[in-house]
């Protein structure tokens, strides 16, 4: 144990508070998970839910819970985590408060990959689902390289504003390309593209959960291990070099992780924007600027945010649904504008 005289009481309390906050968000996710399980077109009472959960429900009840609701809930949480951590990395390494994989067009690139892939495997039952995140990673990776090259100016590097504008333009371009593509494809693919663009959690079965899970389990701990590196990059390139960081190498590694997380996330959900923007901001408000805390807090906030959005989307217009991406955008878009105005001032 480290003697207290070197760390002030305030600082110790601050560190403990951060850990408690992360636990509180986890508790909120668990309560939301329970609420989400018993809401829907067919309501399950808490008692039925409890019985079904422990294998004592009717066949129909367990079908609804285990085959429809639970995978979708788990998927929302995982996708939310992936997008939030991706945004957290992008904001940290670019020192740009407005960076988000959705706004920067990385999600759109992943989506284009997914749409092309789906058009070759039209029936979701036959789709080799585990391949989806790889295809999406490829799509988002190519897009990220493209955005990087287009916003890079020799001698000046990458300005946050140019990065943002290039990203927005590319995202718009790719979305347009996807619609053009659908004209050439059958109506089923068109349906899929429409749903994807709106940002619905479409891959709601366990196969999709399993295809996304390894990405989360590998990449998020990797990013947490790099927390110190993100902290240092967050001080700017010159200071980071002065502190002994191999700036270019680490930035590319982290950028790769951000692109992979966003790609893998949206490969099984729709093109959901703003989670990567809003969740890290909320996380920073709650736990400060040290990424040892910010990454975990962002992941939890992202999971919670998307779970809440998807649950609201499922129940608000029953029996039809609003895609989670739209619900998130209703909160996220004004927040984005608020940040845009604030960062100009």
């Amino acid at each position, binding site marked *: 144990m*480290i*003697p207290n005289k*070197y*760390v*002030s009481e*305030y*600082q110790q309390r*601050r560190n403990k508070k951060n850990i408690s906050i992360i636990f509180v968000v986890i508790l909120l996710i668990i309560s939301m998970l329970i609420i989400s399980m018993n809401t829907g077109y067919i309501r399950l009472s808490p008692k039925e839910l409890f019985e079904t959960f422990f294998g004592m429900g009717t066949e129909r009840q367990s079908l609804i819970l285990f085959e429809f609701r639970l995978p979708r809930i788990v998927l929302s949480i995982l996708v939310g985590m992936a997008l939030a951590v991706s945004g957290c990395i992008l904001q940290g390494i670019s*020192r740009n408060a407005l960076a988000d994989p959705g706004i920067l067009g990385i999600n759109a690139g992943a989506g284009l990959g997914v749409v092309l892939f789906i058009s070759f495997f039209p029936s979701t039952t036959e789709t080799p689902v585990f391949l989806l995140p790889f295809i999406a990673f490829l799509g988002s990776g190519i897009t990220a390289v493209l955005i990087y090259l287009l916003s890079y100016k*020799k*001698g000046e590097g990458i300005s946050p504003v140019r990065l943002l504008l290039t990203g927005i333009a590319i995202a718009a371009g790719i979305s347009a390309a996807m619609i053009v593509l659908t004209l050439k494809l059958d109506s089923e693919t068109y349906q899929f593209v429409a749903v994807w663009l709106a940002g619905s959690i479409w891959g709601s079965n366990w196969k999709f959960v399993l295809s996304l899970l390894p990405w989360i389990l590998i990449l998020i701990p990797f990013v*947490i*291990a790099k*927390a*110190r590196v993100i*902290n*240092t990059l*967050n*001080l*700017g390139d*010159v*200071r980071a*070099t*002065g*502190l*002994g*960081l*191999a700036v270019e190498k680490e930035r590319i590694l982290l950028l790769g992780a951000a692109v992979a997380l966003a790609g893998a996330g949206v490969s099984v959900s729709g093109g959901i924007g703003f989670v990567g923007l809003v969740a890290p901001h909320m996380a*920073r408000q709650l736990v*400060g*600027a*040290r990424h*040892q805390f910010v990454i975990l807090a962002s992941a939890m906030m992202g999971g919670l945010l998307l779970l809440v959005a998807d649950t609201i989307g499922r129940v608000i217009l029953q029996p039809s649904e609003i895609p989670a991406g739209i619900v998130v955008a209703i909160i996220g878009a004004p927040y984005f504008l608020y940040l845009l105005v604030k960062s100009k001032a």
Partner: protein
Amino acid sequence: MSNLFVKDIVVSYSGLPIIDRLNISIPDHKITTIIGPNGCGKSTLLKTIARILKTDRGAVFLDGKAIQQLSTKKVAKRMAILPQSSEVPPGLTIFELVSYGRFPHQRGLGTLKLEDLKQIDWAIQVTGLSELKDRPVVALSGGQRQRVWIAMALAQDTDILILDEPTTYLDLAHQLDILLLLEKLNKEEERTIIMVLHDLNLASRFSHNMIAMKEGSIVAEGPPSKVMTSSTIQKVFDIDANLTICPFSTNPILHSYQLSGCTQDLLENANEG
């Protein structure tokens, strides 16, 4: 031979050569200040010494090895850099920001060990920030913020400190405050300090060694008594200088100055008036 010297370097910026074949040796355990007009390449030289900029030719040598060949982490244990102030990420306390200075000494997740904490604590004390260490950095004044950056560099525990215009944007008292702190670190800890300053009088007063640059070359170097002469100042800045002796350091300082060529007219005008 000193530990740190620059040999035959050529440095260019987007194709244009800024420094052409420059040689200089930085004396150990001394305060060295680079002076010169805007665009003379003094910041470029400082950044090259700090390995921020790469050379086209030649190299900076630290302990007999070319600095670009050494691992950046190893260099970070020998020299700390204070660039011109930049934005601080919001949400950091002074203690937290100073703790980032431990980066080159840490591994893995970066949990602060006893040795790290001792160094951070010392850095905060020596810069006079103990009372403020729980405050958010964004709430500090310019002078306090510069102290925090110096504390972070001290937490890095290096024997060389490199500072790019550490007194810019500070008022007179805070400029002195920072330079007195650097002088103390040099005296008590024998740290080698290399910096760029715009204020010639402060440079002369606080330096052991001065380097005067113009158009990418060195015009004069040595102790202030040798560099702060009216002929050198005329060559470097194109000004006619009237020099006197600083009562606090016995080094030469500017009494007043005028653009070269105007002096005669002005003196006549003053006499007539």
